[in-house]
């Protein structure tokens, strides 16, 4: 009987206990983390929208430039001499104040020269060209595989310093893009650390020091290239998800642009078939799908015609901004040691570039990413390069020149025309503009 009483009492006892506990454990409200607010006074570029920006490799070095990296990205198998090079286009260095003799010669026997972005004056010239042609600015490529090493870090920090100075001088937009090619999962922490270092070292987010650093959605924009590709990378989409969280931090201190594969939306072809990619994309601010090599002039409309507006519609629905990539052509015969790959995607005097510019604009795009400003290894450079018939000799191979009847700044000029169209100027159509 006593036992029965005890059982009857139990629920009341336990109830009263819980009540006492509730009083003690008043829910502790987590202190709301205040999002960082940036002073945008004097900031020149408050959004990527309306801008046409190129990628800037800046990875070349020359013997004697002080970088101590030899002929980096010019050479092949440790040599930079006829028959041994990774570049298809030869930079036109007529206007550079600092150049380097190479073992290459023109038909008349004179030495062919190159430049090094390690030199401040060369980077200055590049930004001067951007200003002359109305190109809004560049994304400075930061190759994780390179900056992990001491010499790479020294080089890319010097190029960045050169570019920050020049972009300020010429009022061009600048942003940083980590290229994750060759990275592994273990490198994600390195990126976070490197990015923190850069901000401190260069006062990147200081609106007075660098009013030209690109902002987007009220925050400085940082780009991360290489998420979702199905080419056997040693890091995962989940790694990038964590990386984005860390880079933004609880105070959401940066806006993020993600470089994704071309078929990111349908999760096919070049893209890993994982819904997580869409989740990560939704956590970013802008995406830029990699289109180099995905089409040429004859296949462009079939591939991009419906693909682009579908991408843009998806991004609008999910409140993400979208920057299509355009490129002037593609050539990597020397890099791949295969003569059939010279001019693999022909430039057509700019018709191919303009086809993509118009395609993007008419499909509703609001910004462009141009691949690339100075990429001569894969022949996508828009900066001044030598013309066909005026290139140095290259043993039994060759260099691909731009079309001989064009001025050497033709692709800079055409990119500038695209920028003017994206800035809202009228008079542009699907027809490539004619230079007067």
């Amino acid at each position, binding site marked *: 009987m006593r036992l029965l009483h005890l059982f009857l009492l139990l629920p009341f006892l336990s109830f009263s206990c819980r009540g006492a506990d509730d009083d003690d454990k008043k829910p502790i409200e987590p202190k709301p983390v205040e999002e960082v607010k940036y002073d945008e006074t004097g900031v020149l570029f408050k959004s990527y929208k309306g801008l046409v920006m190129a990628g800037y490799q800046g990875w070349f070095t020359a013997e004697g430039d002080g970088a101590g990296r030899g002929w980096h990205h010019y050479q092949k198998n440790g040599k930079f001499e006829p028959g041994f090079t990774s570049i298809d286009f030869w930079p036109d260095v007529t206007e550079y104040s600092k150049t380097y003799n190479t073992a290459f010669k023109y038909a008349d026997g004179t030495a062919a020269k190159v430049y090094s972005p390690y030199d401040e004056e060369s980077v200055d010239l590049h930004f001067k060209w951007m200003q002359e042609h109305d190109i809004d600015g560049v994304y400075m490529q930061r190759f994780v595989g390179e900056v992990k090493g001491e010499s790479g870090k020294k080089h890319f920090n010097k190029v960045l310093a050169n570019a920050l100075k020049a972009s300020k001088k010429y009022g061009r937009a600048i942003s940083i893009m980590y290229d994750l090619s060759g990275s592994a999962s273990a490198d994600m922490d390195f990126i976070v650390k490197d990015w923190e270092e850069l901000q401190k070292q260069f006062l990147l987010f200081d609106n007075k020091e660098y009013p030209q650093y690109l902002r987007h959605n009220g925050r400085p924009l940082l780009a991360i290239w290489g998420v979702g590709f199905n080419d056997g990378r040693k890091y995962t989409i989940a790694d990038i998800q964590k990386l984005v969280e860390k880079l933004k931090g609880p105070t959401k201190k940066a806006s993020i642009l993600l470089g994704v594969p071309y078929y990111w939306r349908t999760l096919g072809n070049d893209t890993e078939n994982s819904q997580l990619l869409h989740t990560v994309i939704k956590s970013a601010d802008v995406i830029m799908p990699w289109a180099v090599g995905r089409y040429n002039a004859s296949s462009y409309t079939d591939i991009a015609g*419906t693909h682009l507006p579908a991408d843009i519609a998806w991004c609008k629905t999910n409140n993400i901004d979208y920057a299509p990539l355009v490129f002037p052509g593609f050539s990597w015969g020397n890099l791949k040691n295969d003569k059939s790959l010279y001019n693999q995607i022909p430039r057509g005097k700019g018709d191919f570039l303009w086809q993509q510019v118009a395609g993007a604009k008419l499909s509703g795009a609001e910004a462009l990413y141009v691949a690339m400003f100075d990429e001569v290894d894969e022949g996508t450079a828009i900066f001044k390069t030598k013309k066909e018939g005026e290139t140095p000799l290259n043993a039994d191979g060759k260099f691909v020149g731009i079309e001989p009847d064009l001025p050497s700044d033709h692709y800079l000029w055409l990119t500038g025309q695209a920028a003017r169209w994206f800035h809202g100027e009228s008079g542009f159509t699907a027809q490539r503009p004619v230079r007067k």
Partner: protein
Amino acid sequence: MKKTKTYISALLVAFLASACSIDNYPAPDAQLYGTFLDSETNEPVEQDIIRGSQIEFIEHGYSSETKQTMLVKNDGTYRNNLIFSNTYTITPVRGNFVPLTPQEVTVKGETQLDFKVQPYIRLKDVKIEKVGSKVVATFKLQQTVINNVRKIGLYVHPEPSVGEPMRTALAEQEINAATDPNKVYKLELDVAANSNVLKAGNQYFFRAGAIIDAPESKFNYAKAVRLGL
């Protein structure tokens, strides 16, 4: 013998009973319906019931992931009254609009699912009228993608579900170019020349359309118009 008969009867009853139990699965208990709406104008996007845009749906919970399809009516609406309550992956496909991404949808009871789409082509300022012995259609084309417009057409049928795949007479014109949004296109259908299929005194439905040059694309249309000949 009598015993054998009893056994056989018993077996028969058992067999029938088991057959009944197999048939006793619940019937489809939900309905799914909606409209394809132009994301800009919010107007229904006209379709073809034959060889038109389709909706693919995959019911979750089955390893086979079998794709089933629904058709869309000419007015841009669709309805499936025999669908099981469940979660589905639903994708409009092979349409006359910019491709959409698959979406996960929970269907329960009467479920409405509209699709906001960007039609490849909008037919604007459409007029279809009888002028003498001809039916004349005039319209402008507003294409929303950079692809060429392949063809335009005027189609006739006694039923309102008239379209390129369902017509008794037609007038078409190859375009194969990007179109100027200000240009007025004109198609004429000679009634007399089609007197074997178009009878004087009868009512017919006329519908103007245009098709974009993109993989698996379908015609975009204006609303069908009823005219007496």
